[in-house]
């Protein structure tokens, strides 16, 4: 995906020069390897800073919320779906946006690479022909990118942007015959007691830093429920019940909106598999309401509409 970089630079510079946009939101190379940082570029000369490779897992849609200027933005499959969600939730107007679509082959799970590199310090990582070449002190190792994808990217069904004004390259083939909800089904098959054990263990390292919330483009309430105090819905301690309440409600707020972009998991400093919560809601939204988030600007989201003959079996 490195090859998109030049094209992105060129498009950003052109748009800024022509005055079509006020700012361009993309990525620039981060100060540590395998960590690109979001960049907001306002001048054509600065467009050279822009960069793109398989470490652009931060969801740029986060930076669009309630902006009033004209924006150019780089968007791969999931980011574009979040932009659609933003548009239907009136957080941004389509007319303000110039979307530079990036067909995506998945982001790298840098934690997995670090583990495979046996926790030696990574000084440089380069992407070439589907391989990640990682350099440490006196060592160099090559990894196949497809074996080190972020977990959400490995089961991604929408790699190509759903809306865009311009593409930086040919569309990539979508992944076929892949079971997207395998992990959810595995948990569903468990007994309640085991499920509780699984989730309690899973979130036990949580330090309640709210990085998952902040990284999520869906979380834009002016006052988050965790900050509400009268009544206080969830305590601020790392009491296991409070932590569980936080995770359940955080996930529930994403019901029918989550695009499975993986930003929450990527942001989590403790490596918690947060998508296990949202994935279940995605599965239910698909099965009960035939809904996948962010695919259409015309349809209202599932929690905003109803059908007379909706799923009713759980009601007495």
């Amino acid at each position, binding site marked *: 995906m490195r090859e998109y970089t030049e094209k992105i630079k060129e498009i950003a510079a052109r748009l800024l020069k022509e005055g079509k946009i006020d700012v361009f939101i993309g990525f620039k190379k981060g100060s540590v390897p395998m960590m690109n940082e979001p960049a907001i570029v306002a001048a054509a000369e600065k467009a050279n800073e822009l960069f793109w490779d398989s470490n652009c897992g931060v969801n740029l849609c986060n930076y669009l919320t309630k902006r009033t200027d004209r924006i150019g933005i780089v968007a791969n499959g999931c980011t574009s779906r979040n932009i659609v969600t933003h548009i239907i939730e009136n957080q941004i107007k389509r007319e303000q946006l110039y979307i530079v679509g990036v067909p995506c082959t998945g982001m790298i799970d840098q934690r997995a690479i670090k583990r495979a590199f046996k926790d030696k310090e990574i000084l440089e990582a380069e992407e070439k022909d589907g391989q990640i070449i990682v350099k440490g002190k006196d060592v160099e190792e090559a990894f196949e990118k497809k074996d080190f994808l972020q977990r959400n990217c490995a089961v991604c069904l929408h790699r190509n942007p759903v809306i865009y004004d311009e593409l930086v390259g040919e569309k990539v083939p979508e992944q076929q015959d892949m079971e997207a909800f395998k992990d959810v089904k595995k948990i569903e098959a468990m007994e309640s007691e085991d499920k509780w054990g699984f989730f309690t263990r899973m979130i036990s390292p949580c330090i309640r830093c709210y990085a998952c919330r902040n990284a999520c483009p869906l979380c834009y309430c002016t006052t988050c429920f965790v900050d509400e105090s009268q009544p206080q819905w969830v305590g601020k301690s790392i009491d296991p*019940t409070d932590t*569980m309440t936080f995770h359940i409600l955080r996930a529930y707020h994403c019901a029918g909106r989550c695009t499975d972009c993986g930003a929450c998991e990527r942001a989590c400093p403790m490596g918690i598999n947060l998508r296990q919560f949202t994935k279940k809601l995605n599965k239910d939204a698909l099965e009960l309401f035939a809904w996948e988030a962010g695919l259409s600007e015309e349809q209202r989201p599932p929690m905003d509409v109803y059908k007379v003959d909706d799923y009713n079996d759980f009601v007495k």
Partner: protein
Amino acid sequence: MNDWQPKITTFLCNWCSYGAADLAGVSRFQYPPYFRIIRVPCSARVSPKFILAALRHGADGVWVSGCHPGDCHYLEGNYYARRKFALLKGLLEHVGIEPGRLHFSWISSAEATKFADVAKGVAAEVKALGPARHFIKARAEVA
């Protein structure tokens, strides 16, 4: 264990199920006394936060009851509520809350017999599960 009486937080819609409970009482229908009834203006008023709060505070079961689809006093509140609860129930049961703890029903204000029947059913299911063990905030709330 047989003496144990569950606490079931019950949210009843003012326009129907609350009336049904009233009618069941006036009609002297018997049903178990485990329910702590909270009157709400509509089943859609019940936020998932309420249900979580009830469980956090030690409720052994939660029951939400509203008007039949199509009969909402606010025309469509219960349709939205139904979607909301379908996903919530799925999520809570996915993380390990036992299926018998969360109950939803549609009961009109004339259906006092249905109210008593559903109450008996809910009570029996919650009682069979025993006291809630998970998702209870044991420590005092600190603001």
